């Protein structure tokens, strides 16, 4: 599987604190990716069971927010790809993760 520079950046962010659940907006801020780029990446990672998502449990009356973190498979995938090429600059700019 080859990954894009953007996917690489997203994986890098998740890899910084692997057990931490993250909000989509925060990931967008940290990676500098717009929603139109970030969410397709998150969707693809979730489709491939590399990312798990959950709805935040919060006070009644407050709508919940979606949270994301890497699955164990996602963690090993991220380690394999991010640690192999830390900057991700040598990778071709694809629109998302491709098999």
């Amino acid at each position: 599987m080859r990954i894009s520079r953007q996917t690489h950046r997203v994986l890098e962010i998740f890899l910084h604190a692997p057990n931490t659940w993250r909000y989509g907006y925060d990931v967008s801020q940290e990676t500098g990716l717009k929603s139109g780029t970030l969410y397709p990446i998150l969707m693809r990672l979730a489709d491939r069971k590399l990312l798990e998502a959950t709805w935040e449990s919060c006070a009644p009356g407050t709508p919940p927010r979606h949270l994301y973190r890497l699955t164990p498979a996602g963690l090993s995938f991220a380690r394999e790809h991010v640690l192999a090429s830390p900057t991700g600059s040598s990778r071709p700019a694809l629109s998302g993760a491709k098999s």
Partner: protein
Amino acid sequence: MTKGLRKLAVALLGAVIRHTPAGGRGWGRAMLREMECIPTDWAALRWAFGGTSAIFRHSLERAWRDERSNHSTDGLLKAVGKLLGGLTLAVAFCVGVLAACILSITRLSTFLVPEWHLAQMPWVGCVSVLGMPETIFFIVAALLWRKRKIVSAGILACAVTLATHFFLYVSAHG
């Protein structure tokens, strides 16, 4: 003005969520909820446009994947149908040929040339039950091999089965 922009952003993403297939709705709601945390209205509108494009792409990808899997199921069903049809045809042909061979030699010879007493000769049985049908099977299988491979393979399988059955029968009964 800015309040209107945020309302427009919410309305846009809300409309997309309502019209998107069930698989993309959760993602749409997630984006809509995140939009409330975006400080500026222009950024919220840009977020909504991005979210719309993401959901649209996700729906397209999913539809394309479903279409592809449906097609592969159809292809498999067609292939199985073709195989079963071909084998049925082959078996029907072989049974017909075998019956015709058995009946033709023994019965017709007695009817046409009764003085030869062919029905009583042991080799006639071998020819009618094995020799003739096997020859016809191999000729027809060779002729059909290029254009109707499944039927041809079915006929060859019948030929092998018949020969095996014949030799097992002969070895058991003498």
